[in-house]
């Protein structure tokens, strides 16, 4: 039974979703959330190969010409989230929380730190000691970045979020200077943790509920997600 008065966050496991479809879905949910038609949402999904450049990103951080990307089957988007350039692709777990921060804390820095905390706690369940690095948003293991964060907030409603490398083919990061940093990236698989996206989701969702102090509710998706 639900504790009365506790905030609710609906979890949507969406499987593989194109970047464009995810943008459109977020746009719709942000609007519905703003109008109070739906509770907070936590979208979990995987993107096909795509490189995205944030609003403040520097195009020179894309190291390959667009033509090469096209031939490699990688989409390219300018996007409205914070942060610089990044890569998304299969084996990477994407989390897009659509939260009304008015009902949590009206603090964008606290929000980003909380996202980091969710990921750090979830990775801990797999025996990985992840940490923050001062001045470098994201989650790190031994000086290598395992999760990137880029967020957009409109009237205190959040969108975009984080990308956690589970079994990502890290060679794709070779096309970019990730987030404008020349620090190396890593993945759970590279660190010796063999886990499916489904298992990582199962670890992330309760951590998210703990950190944001809300009840995580599964929305209807039949059966098991194939990962």
């Amino acid at each position: 039974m639900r504790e009365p008065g506790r905030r609710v966050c609906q979890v949507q496991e969406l499987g593989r979703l194109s970047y464009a479809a995810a943008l459109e879905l977020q746009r719709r949910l942000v609007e519905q959330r703003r109008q109070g038609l739906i509770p907070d949402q936590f979208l979990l999904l995987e993107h096909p190969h795509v490189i995205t450049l944030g609003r403040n990103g520097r195009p020179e951080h894309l190291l390959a010409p667009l033509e090469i990307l096209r031939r490699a089957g990688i989409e390219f988007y300018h996007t409205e989230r914070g942060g610089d350039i990044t890569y998304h692709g299969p084996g990477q777990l994407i989390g897009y929380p659509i939260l009304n921060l008015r009902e949590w804390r009206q603090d964008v820095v606290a929000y980003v730190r909380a996202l980091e905390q969710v990921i750090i706690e979830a990775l801990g369940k797999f025996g990985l000691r992840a940490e923050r690095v001062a001045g470098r948003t994201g989650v790190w293991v031994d000086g290598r970045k395992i999760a990137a964060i880029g967020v957009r907030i409109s009237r205190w409603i959040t969108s975009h979020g984080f990308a956690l490398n589970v079994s990502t083919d890290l060679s794709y990061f070779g096309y970019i200077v990730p987030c404008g940093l020349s620090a190396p990236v890593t993945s759970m698989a590279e660190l010796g943790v063999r886990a499916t996206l489904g298992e990582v989701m199962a670890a992330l969702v309760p951590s998210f509920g703990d950190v944001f102090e809300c009840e995580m509710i599964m929305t209807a998706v039949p059966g098991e997600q194939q990962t």
Partner: protein
Amino acid sequence: MIDVVMPQMGESIVEGTLTKWLKKPGERVERDEPLFEISTDKVDTEVPSPAAGTLAEVLVAEGQTVPINTVVARIDEAAVADRATQPGAEAAAAAAVEAAPKAAAEPAPAEVVSGEVGPLSPLVRRLLREHNLDPRQIKGTGAGGRITKQDVEAYLAARGQAPAAPPPAPPSEPVAIAEEPAAAAAPAEAMPLPRAEAPKVRIEPMSIMRQKIAEHMILSRRTSAHVTTFHRVDMTAVARMRERFKEQIQQRYGFSLTYLPFVTRAAAQALRAFPLLNASIDGTNIVYHNEINIGIAVALEGGLIVPVIRNADEKSVIGLQRAIVDLATRARSRQLKPDEVHGGTFSITNFGSYGSLTGTPIINQPQVAILGVGLVEKAPVVVDEDKIAIRSVCLMSLTFDHRLIDGALADQFMLKIKAVLENWSEEVL
């Protein structure tokens, strides 16, 4: 004049970088409409306008970083008051350019629709509705950028020309292609609006749940070698048991006793006896699950979900009934928790509750079998070699993955379920 300041976006934040103005000086802005964007540590934030009016002054340029509470712009509210007198004038202007006299006879006050679109006259709104158009796609040329009837007609004509919208005419009809642009180029007034016919189709996007169900069903069909076997099960013993305890259970527990928990209990016992039915396939390995977690398909409005009863073999009939009622209720009010829809090792679908005699269900991946339960009804049955009796019977189907399970095993499994149900001996209370 209203001052617009750099907002404090968090306790520890002392400054912000203004990355983009979303309005230009002199432009009108509504209260709460996004006015500019700021950036702090990987977060981009849209800042809404504190008031309605005209953006009078911009004091901080894009790219500048300023302390919080610095005045970044001023908004002239007086501009709103001026504007208040405008809608009447605009309506008159719009009415004047309406070609149809009928429109001029309808000088209803302009109404503001939500979004970035300005006020629309009733005629324009009707046109938009009839043609199912989004006003944001149409460029307004009327007073203050508002959309006139001509704008809608021009949009429709242009759309008619665009190759994307209607399928291009086949090459055998070159005349039709030549004619269309000519028609579009004609003055808007001269072109009679096509009569709005009753549409033959209605298109709406699938919900995410629907898309996921569709994906999952096709994925399952592609993954497994589906075979279905049917068995007739005599439910008379269970029906008697149910009759005997139904009222007592309703009184004591507040739910009614159905056939489903009996079938679930029988299935759990059969799964214990035949663990291959409780397995899944991983590449060329067989994964045997030690827990028997039975998913029960629940119909929802516009979809379905399969919540899972964990360790179903450890539960009594009453315990199973309670779990089924609880999961189904919470599935319908969308309050299932993540671990309640994951980890199923076998599924049951009870289409009998909708009157179906039997069916051929699709396997819920990555499981390897699903039991379908048809309607339980009274029927004449041959018993004791040559006598006819009225019995409660049910057609049950088992869809199994022939990659892993052969017909003989599937039927042994079903015979086990049948034996448990037909010779029901366990007390219910």
